[in-house]
């Protein structure tokens, strides 16, 4: 009996640890054991258990006891937890390259990775290819950096190879900071060897002997699995001296970040590695010329490296067959927010937002209306539902005012206020601005103040114009991408949802009913059954005689949540 439990961070948070322990004990009783696998990306079905070829989902306490009976060969109701065939068919709508092993193999077993063809690509390069041929293969694939900017990977590799100097570095940017993006975490937790193999291949191509993975401290499981993977690779001679019996020597170590979003920017990341405050500097010189410790350094992110072994094994041409003219291959997206079936999806570039949200993601939770999707995190923008036939590639997304970014797709419905979303991102950027450039440090703070005022019901005539003007100034007056793109959430919501800004400012109304200071709560006496629950529970004591005293009401919304008869009206 083959039993495996998905133990990524999401699975564990949903209770996978306990399930694993219980099932493993049962399996041991019959002379077997349960295996750990990473995250399959169907987060909405967690916790997930595989027994033989069956998949059991949303396994709760009752579910575990049914599975225990199943393992013992007793009569059981386990079938109730079996995943629907249609549900699993959703996986076939995806094309998995970076995620190919995620949720399939045990991330803590190098043997399982090797069984799937792992380290063949590194061997092929090191024992049978020149560095020129490796870079040519990456060039043919059209792989671009998956971290956000979308710069061609081969170009950076070539530039680093061409830079003079004996000592060069390969750096993996695992400082995944975009709120709403977790593809890198999932890859590190579920298939760490793919990242190592990508880095080994890149190191061979540019002539580096040292690799560093800069990973967020907030990802303890990813760090633990990477450490284990590095140790295993060293034991097998895949890292260290004379790899595959060649002259090529390369080793990797991990540096834990200390929590600064701006360190996702390459020059800031290098400053942080060097023990400095993570503040970006002017480019050129580019890291490929003068990077870590002033030596040529190549920086790519986790997903970029994870694509490399597949490209070498299958050829660059196979990768470039997928996608559009300007964007090749596949891209992993973290589909979250008000989506029915959230998780990680990997699709070829060029499929539409509609495909991802409706076909793969199952549309909006609770049958509500799809309003917009936020792409590219704090540097990106909100794409409205009207543009859901936009093809997902670098160029088309840029035309909408959003960006591909690292692949966060936060879906929003009619209850999401777009002014509040702009405020939310500006709040984030203000906290994360390193403070070097005045426009970013002060300008974004002013943008935030205006947005807070509007959400607070104190917007005034001229605010919209001021927001646009200030946004443009910040874009031109900032050194790094953080500042240059910080106003994007404001600009895109102004472009597509100007009416919401106007409603807030002129009519003092939030149509999404999200900005609390703009709401009024009243009791509909026709629906009210006079149960007095709201009167008893109101924390402000604002409800007496079935009338809500607006001067006392703190607009916490508890009464509306509690009322079983829908008698609390929110306007």
């Amino acid at each position, binding site marked *: 009996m083959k039993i495996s439990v998905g133990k990524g961070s999401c699975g564990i948070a949903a209770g996978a640890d306990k399930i694993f322990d219980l099932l493993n004990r049962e399996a041991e009783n019959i002379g077997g054991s349960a295996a750990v696998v990473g995250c399959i990306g169907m987060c909405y079905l967690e916790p997930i258990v595989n027994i033989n070829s069956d998949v059991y989902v949303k396994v709760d306490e009752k579910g575990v006891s049914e599975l225990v009976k199943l393992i013992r060969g007793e009569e059981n109701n386990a079938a109730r937890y079996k995943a629907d065939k249609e549900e699993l068919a959703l996986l076939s709508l995806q094309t998995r390259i970076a995620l190919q092993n995620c949720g399939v193999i045990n991330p803590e077993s190098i043997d399982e990775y090797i069984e799937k063809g792992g380290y063949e690509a590194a061997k092929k390069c090191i024992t049978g290819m020149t560095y020129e041929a490796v870079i040519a293969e990456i060039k043919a694939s059209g792989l671009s950096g998956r971290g956000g900017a979308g710069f061609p990977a081969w170009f950076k590799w070539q530039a680093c190879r061409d830079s003079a100097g004996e000592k060069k570095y390969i750096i993996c940017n695992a400082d995944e900071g975009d709120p709403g993006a977790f593809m890198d975490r999932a890859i590190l937790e579920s298939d760490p060897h793919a990242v190592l193999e990508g880095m080994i291949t890149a190191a061979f191509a540019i002539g580096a002997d040292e690799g560093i993975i800069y990973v967020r401290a907030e990802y303890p499981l990813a760090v633990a699995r990477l450490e284990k993977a590095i140790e295993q690779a060293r034991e097998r001679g895949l890292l260290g001296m004379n790899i595959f019996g060649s002259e090529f020597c390369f080793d990797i170590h991990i540096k834990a970040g200390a929590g600064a*979003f701006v360190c996702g920017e390459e020059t800031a990341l290098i400053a942080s590695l060097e023990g400095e405050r993570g503040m970006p500097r002017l480019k050129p010189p580019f890291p490929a010329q003068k990077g870590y410790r002033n030596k040529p350094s190549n920086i790519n992110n986790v997903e970029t490296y994870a694509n490399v072994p597949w490209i070498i094994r299958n050829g660059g041409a196979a990768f470039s067959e997928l996608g559009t003219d300007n964007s090749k291959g596949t891209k992993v997206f973290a589909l979250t927010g008000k989506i029915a079936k959230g998780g990680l999806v990997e699709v070829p570039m060029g499929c539409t937002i509609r495909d991802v949200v409706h076909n793969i993601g199952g549309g909006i939770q609770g049958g509500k209306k799809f309003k917009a999707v936020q792409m590219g995190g704090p540097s990106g923008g909100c794409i409205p539902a009207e543009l859901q036939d936009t093809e997902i590639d670098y160029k088309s997304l840029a035309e909408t005012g959003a960006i591909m970014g690292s692949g966060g797709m936060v879906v929003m419905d009619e209850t999401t206020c777009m002014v509040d*979303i702009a405020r*939310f991102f500006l709040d984030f950027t203000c906290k994360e601005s390193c403070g070097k450039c005045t426009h970013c440090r002060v300008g974004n703070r002013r943008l935030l103040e205006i947005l807070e005022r509007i959400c607070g019901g104190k917007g005034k005539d001229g605010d919209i114009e001021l927001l646009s003007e200030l946004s443009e100034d910040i874009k031109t007056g900032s050194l790094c991408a953080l500042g240059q793109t910080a106003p994007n959430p404001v600009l895109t919501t102004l472009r597509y949802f100007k009416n919401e800004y106007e409603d807030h400012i002129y009519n003092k109304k939030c149509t999404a009913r999200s900005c609390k200071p703009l709401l009024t709560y009243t009791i509909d006496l026709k629906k009210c059954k006079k149960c007095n629950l709201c009167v008893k529970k109101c924390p402000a004591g604002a409800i007496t005689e079935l009338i809500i005293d607006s001067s006392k009401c703190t607009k916490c919304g508890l009464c509306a949540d509690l009322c079983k008869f829908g008698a609390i009206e929110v306007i």
Partner: protein
Amino acid sequence: MNCNCNAELKRKLESELEKYADSGKGALIPILQKAQEIYGWLPADVLEYIGKKTGIKPAKITGVVTFYTQFRTKPAGKHLILLCQGTACHVNGSAEIESAIRGRLNVGEGEITEDGLFTYNNAACLGCCSLSPVMMVGDKTYGKLTRESTVKILDEYAGGAV
């Protein structure tokens, strides 16, 4: 070091500093991470001591400590709460959870409870977006939080059940 001069902790810190003796200032962040692991936070005299041992100027150390959100210059409670403020959590109601935590513990962001049990911090994103809203207590992640479940979890910690 005057206060915090628990001999065992100091010995631990010294052995960590020795490991980085040849690394120059590039090792400052890992050293601070280790020091925080040992002490639970970064007291001023510990920073001063690190400066003396490594030759890194106090201004530089303070600059780095205040730049990164991971470093604490105030003591932390026994349980560190990290409430995710990511986009997915925001649209799925993290503000409610924040008010539940504040209400239950009577603390603001970055503060420690009177009994020293909890420190409450916000985090930019914990990367468990599909379970939003999410918080971590220590190294445990809790998802799909509601006002009620949040209070229940905190009660369990406070009662020593976890």
